[in-house]
């Protein structure tokens, strides 16, 4: 069962499909700390209105516009759904240039080194599986902690407002996003290695 939803005063959708702000496209207030249910409700509602399936019987130009509008809605939804891509988009939207190939975040330097070293030894059968599993726990904890930090930082940024957020907040967000991305990749590496062992 999905939880019941209090629709006594559910928000109206006031959207601007031509805006470069993904929140506007979906008719959501520009708030980084967004509620997942609101996001998917808006996405579904706009899909119901724009999807080409419902515009089969129209002028060709209307069909094409419906197609492009749906594409824009899809893009906005997909970007905002994941907190990391949401944060990265928001930084760029606010004029922050993101580095394309950031190095290992400083905070994670020693963890990354230890994990890679353990995985390397594990592949050549010099480390045992419990060590890898322990690293999986450590990485997951680090990731969980940062996800919480990100949620809190989103709240702080919403509070400050993009125009008044200082460089410090931007930098904190950028670093946190980089760390989360790195921890995700690290988790994937560990999972993949463990999976291969399972298949053996």
């Amino acid at each position, binding site marked *: 069962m*999905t939880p019941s*939803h209090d*629709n006594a005063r*559910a*928000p*109206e*959708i*006031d*959207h601007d*499909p031509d805006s470069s702000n993904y929140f506007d496209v979906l*008719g959501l207030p520009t708030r980084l700390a967004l509620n997942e249910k*609101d996001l998917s*409700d*808006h996405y*579904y*509602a706009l*899909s*119901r*209105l*724009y*999807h*080409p*399936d*419902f*515009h*089969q*019987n*129209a*002028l*060709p*130009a*209307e069909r*094409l*516009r*419906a*197609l*492009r*509008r*749906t*594409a*824009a809605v*899809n*893009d906005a*939804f*997909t970007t905002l759904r994941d907190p990391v891509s949401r944060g990265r988009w928001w930084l760029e939207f606010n004029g922050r240039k993101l580095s394309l190939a950031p190095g290992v975040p400083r905070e994670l330097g020693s963890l990354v080194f230890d994990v890679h070293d353990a995985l390397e030894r594990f592949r050549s059968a010099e480390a045992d599986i419990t060590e890898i599993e322990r690293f999986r726990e450590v990485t997951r904890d680090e990731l969980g902690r940062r996800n919480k930090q990100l949620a809190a930082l989103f709240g702080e940024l919403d509070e400050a407002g993009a125009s008044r957020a200082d460089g410090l907040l931007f930098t904190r967000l950028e670093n946190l996003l980089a760390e989360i991305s790195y921890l995700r990749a690290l988790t994937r590496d560990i999972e993949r290695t463990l999976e291969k062992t399972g298949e053996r």
Partner: protein
Amino acid sequence: MSRILGIDLGTTNSLIAQVVDGVPHVIRDPQTGERLLPSVVVFTDDGKVLVGQAARDAERNGSGIVISSVKRLMGIGMEHVNEDDRKQFPLTPADSGPVRFTVGNQSMTPPQISAHLLRELRRRAEQALGEPVSDVVITVPAYFNDSQRQATRDAGRLAGLQVLRLVNEPTAASLAYGLDRRDHGTVAVFDFGGGTFDVSILRLQGGIFEVLATNGNTRLGGDDFDRAVAGWLLKKAADESGLPEIMTDHRVFTQARREAENAKIRLTTESVTVATLVLPGMDTPYEALLTREEFETIIRATAEQTIVHCREALKDAQISPKDVDSVVLVGGSTRVPLVRTLVREFFGIEPLADIDPDEVVALGAAVQADILAGGTKDMLLLDVVPLSLGIETMGGVMTRLIHRNTKIPCTVVEEFTTPADNVTSIDIHVLQGEREFARDNRSLARFKLPVEPLPAGMARVLVMFLIDANGILSVTAIDEKTKNEHTVEVKPSYGLTDEQVEEMLIDSFDNAERDVTERLLAEAVVAAESILLHTNKALKEGADLLQPEERDGIVRAESALRKALESTDRQTILDATAALDAATKPLADRLLDRAVNRLLKSRTVDEVLASDEAV
């Protein structure tokens, strides 16, 4: 509301279906009462073409040139045809390039063979319904790439059908299952057919079917079980009868394949069966005992591959097997008990097979057809692109522009510039696949982008890649300076160009009696009449949205098209249609936006979600 039908163009069988009073039905052949059309085409020695059961009967008698399971070769190049298929199909020898068959003194392509199947389905439907049929939805494996999809669309066109939509088979199946709007939860559709395997993970909520991820293999199916069992049978027969030469005897091989298939079917309900082969020079037929246990040992490796794909799909959907609320079985190969066991073990729940797995895809196609026709308004499918799409960049690397499992339709815009001074064009090589290097992925298309001769890096062209709701790519280039948009001529790597399709229409012997020029003209007239009809409607609805000069422009283009229709010149009609399309663009844009805004106005999200109203 025009009638639109749903077609499942399968590897082993094909079906056609329609929705009547909100319920989908498979249309039977009025002559034989059959629902399934075997996907077999035979070209007889006396020049006849047999399709379906008649072709299967001819195949048994060993006469004529047989082409079955042609779906395996749709939209692929000769370099991707495996050894077994090279033996099975009457291929025109070539190392690369599009697949062609040699049929007598003719050369045919896979879409032309599929068109024979589609024409037969069309005949069935027209006889059963007593009226002409032209608009259809055709299903394709979710894991079909762009070329395979285009080939399917070409087949429809060659059969004289207007293919309004290609729908992914597992998603179509979910539509047939999820007819109740109250259904919600996470569903895995496990679609294991004769030649292809797909798994799709969907979230159902309030009539919306959102695909979270899809995975599969377009060369994995029940055929592979048959092949494995046939191999086992041949080897056993060769060993026990002391006739090693039968291993390479084509007639014995064909027999073994058929026996293997029949044994597989019997082992669904029986625990042991006998396979028989008539061997050259032997008085009594050779018999082999096959237990279900042994059968399962032979096919296990193939069957287990499906689970590998399920794991990948779940990973992409970011969920685990226990998050799946129900599993739906689709396709004939899900009748094999081992397959069911593997599915049950992996997901930890009993899979559903309430709807005949052979029919469920066609039924879902009919539901999607009904949505497009405006009949069903409360259901909506939100699908994804199965494979990443990108372009070749420096060093032969594939740069991804659209990642797999991206929601469709989708667009991505890339800026291109010139690598050297004064070049007049840039070569773009479009690829699809998950591998790092361009050469390991499927080449979809190549095109040249014209640019102004300027110093290196100065020219700027924006290229928009658009994947439509069919999962098919189109490319538009925009000149940054002039903002002029032009559609890029995309030359498909394995597919057919429009000109080739037209040539095939002309060559097609089914159309010999009909004048093809007339047929192409008729297509243009239908399109012209449709836009005239919609323009008329749009002018009434949007009278207040137009400046007088805009209105005049539309009216002028409208009468020009009417005048063009008096002629019988196809090109004149096409040009006038394009001109009217361009003239109505601002009106079309405003109409859509106003309709959406009206529906949104003073309504809450929940009200929009709850309404069955389409724009």
